């Protein structure tokens, strides 16, 4: 099925560890996004990309990094995990019909 694929679905990290959240889309969308969703706070934009090789910060970029070497892939990197990064992370791509979201990664930092 066409769409946005995120891995892993769940992850527990210890403080100070690093990890990469993977995101792939097969709709040839130029725009891709990373959001975090905290209870009662809606979706907060972390980073976005308007095409391969181009990325930009969103509302809450601190503690994260991204790269966009291909149209399909937009990984999100956490270098030094902190408890404040416990959240559900959603990757999305956007075409003319609106946003298509992945099913999310639930990350807990302990």
């Amino acid at each position, binding site marked *: 099925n066409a769409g*946005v694929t995120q891995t892993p679905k769940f992850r527990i990290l210890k403080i100070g560890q690093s990890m990469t959240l993977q995101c792939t889309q097969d709709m040839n969308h130029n*725009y891709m*996004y990373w*959001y975090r969703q905290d209870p*009662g*706070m*809606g*979706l907060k*934009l972390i980073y*976005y990309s*308007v095409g391969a090789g181009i990325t930009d910060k*969103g509302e809450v970029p601190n503690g994260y990094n991204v790269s966009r070497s291909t149209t399909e892939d937009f990984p999100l990197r956490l270098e030094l995990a902190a408890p404040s990064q416990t959240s559900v992370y*959603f990757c*999305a791509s*956007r075409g003319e*019909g*609106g*946003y*298509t*979201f*992945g*099913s*999310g990664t639930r990350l807990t930092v302990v």
Partner: protein
Amino acid sequence: TQLLEQSPQFLSIQEGENLTVYCNSSSVFSSLQWYRQEPGEGPVLLVTVVTGGEVKKLKRLTFQFGDARKDSSLHITAAQPGDTGLYLCAGAYDNYGQNFVFGPGTRLSVLP
């Protein structure tokens, strides 16, 4: 400070009842979208509205965009348990580039 506000935050109703949820901003939207998110999944697009005063219907869901393009409502007729979920509105602003801003959502629970 939220650019977008949604109300109510929570809503619990019985199957068969009608309901309306709201999305408001102090700024003018260039377009607005509604999404529904079920537990453990990402949001799924329901509708996009772009013209002030526009009304769109999707089966039992009616979406209205305010004349001034600062607010929107979602009305559900004869709610069913399958309507349960988090309803998010997302607005695009001319001075916010190509990205949409998401509201905090209304969490709806429809009891059988």
